[in-house]
């Protein structure tokens, strides 16, 4: 008999994910996702609504499958991307974590985030903020991220926003 996800477990997972991104431990970060993960940051269709159908409407980022996140990490770490070299310094603050639904093998978690980014190349600091909606799935002893939806509230992008600053 396995117990549903607790808020403490959810916080542990989300905080750990943020730490791995902030410290550029990308392999460990990728290992937190299921192979079929949906990783989605919708675009805004108006002042008040984001897009809702990634197949008919534009997203800022939409991937189905961890493999696509591996591509992003490969690009980030390749040394071949001007925009990613030198890497910006980032820190995520994740808060207001709520387990909104939970059974033995699946859980829905919502949270809010701010990500502070210092772009060393241009000597400028920016802050990105928004909401996270996760679906977590139990795989053996671990909970993995099966879905991550990022609602970026300040979506006028200052030159670049990569997967490390959302």
């Amino acid at each position: 008999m396995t117990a549903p996800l607790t808020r403490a477990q959810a916080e542990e997972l989300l905080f750990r994910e943020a730490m791995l991104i902030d410290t550029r431990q990308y392999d460990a970060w990728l290992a937190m996702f299921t192979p079929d993960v949906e990783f989605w940051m919708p675009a805004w269709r108006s002042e008040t609504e984001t897009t809702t159908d990634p197949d008919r409407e534009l997203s800022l980022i939409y991937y189905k499958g961890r493999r696509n996140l591996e591509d992003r990490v490969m690009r980030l770490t390749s040394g071949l991307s001007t925009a990613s070299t030198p890497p910006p310094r980032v820190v995520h603050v994740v808060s207001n974590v709520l387990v909104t639904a939970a059974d033995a093998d699946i859980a829905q978690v919502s949270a809010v985030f701010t990500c502070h980014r210092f772009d060393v190349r241009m000597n400028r600091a920016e802050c990105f903020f928004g909401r996270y909606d996760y679906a977590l799935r139990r795989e053996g002893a671990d909970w993995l991220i099966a879905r991550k939806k990022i609602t970026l509230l300040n979506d006028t992008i200052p030159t670049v926003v990569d997967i490390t600053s959302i």
Partner: protein
Amino acid sequence: MTIDVSAYVDDRPDEGIFRVNRAIFTDEQVFEAEMARIFEGGWVFLGLEAQAPAPHDFFTTFAGRVPILVQRDGEGVLRAFVNSCPHKGARLAQTQAGNARLHVCPYHSWSFDSAGRSKAVKWQKAGCYSAAFDQQDHGLAVVPRFANYRGFLFGSLSADVPPLAEYLGEAAKLLDLVADQSEEGAELVPGQVTFTYQANWKLQLENCSDAYHFTSAHPSYIRVLERRQQETSGEVVASVWENSDYWKEETQGIGGGSYSFPNGHVLNWGVFGITPAIPLYESAAVLAERHGEGKRDWMFNMRNLTIFPNLQVAENASSQLRVIRPISPGLTEMRTWCIAPKGESDAARRQRIRQYEDFFNPTGMATPDDTVSYENCQIGFAGTVDPWLQGYARGMTASVEGGNRFSDRIGLNPARSVLADSQLCDETLYHAYYRAWAERLGDVA
């Protein structure tokens, strides 16, 4: 304000010299003149008719620094107004788009119908206005020139401009290649993406036409493509680039080239071929039947089009409509959309959107490597030991007057053209930008 254009553009065709001075990207006076003469003094792109399809629909945009309201009235007539209340100047429509029979100014409640006419001046009778005021028109200021070319809406804040058809000239046929992909025309996929970069607007103008940077600025993206090619699975985001050889340096033979037109309109293009990697593939046969093979083949070519000064339609990895909005010499805002033929299948739309996000978005894997390079240029422009840039010289001996056998296929008559193998990467197409720029600013005194 005095602008000596020869201090910024050194154009000596007989000597094989074309140079641009770095100051053209940084000088405040140049920027002021560009706003007055180009963005607020001539034709600029405002938006697509499809952004306001129904009676009373509207959308907002800018012509240079001037806020613009494009509004459809109850009878379906589209008009463009300055989006500013005549009373105290407040911006009237507050949202990017909407539907309004009536706009009421949130400051003092002056109101306007969807044809821009004054409906009411609040408490007018009690206002002890002079007769002179009562005789005045209190409607919205009309943008002096407004025209619709096949769903592409343009306006000019100066009445002293040629008709739009004359301004677009032969380049209009390149907008036809976008509009004719569906019998219903083109639309914008819901979801707008706005980004800024800390550099001059003309860097975006140039980069769209720049074939030379692709393998230099985007090797990380190219490596991702190579990886996807090796490990194909249903999960990966397929890209048209991985199915095309035209941009690869080892490719032999004519793969594309450039066309330039009067008034600063420019196209660079390459052959992709009729491949399933292009979302339009499902319509290949019907488009050939409807428009002939020549025009159909052109719809499948990689095409980066600039309608000077602020519209770009890039059809390569996917299809993007961009509106360039200069904010200051060193700051530019880009508003971008996925433009698509109306009525395409769900599968084609999904493929178009996935390719778009990966390549075009500022949250994707290619555009940031461009915009960061613009910022590096803007920093480098401070170096005035030799102020003259050397980036306008490739293709100088390949550029010829008129078109070629490719443009002949759609009866397109450019002013100049270059036919190129993959390594030529013409830079003479930029000359059209700066010649138009010099013409517009030439008599600023």
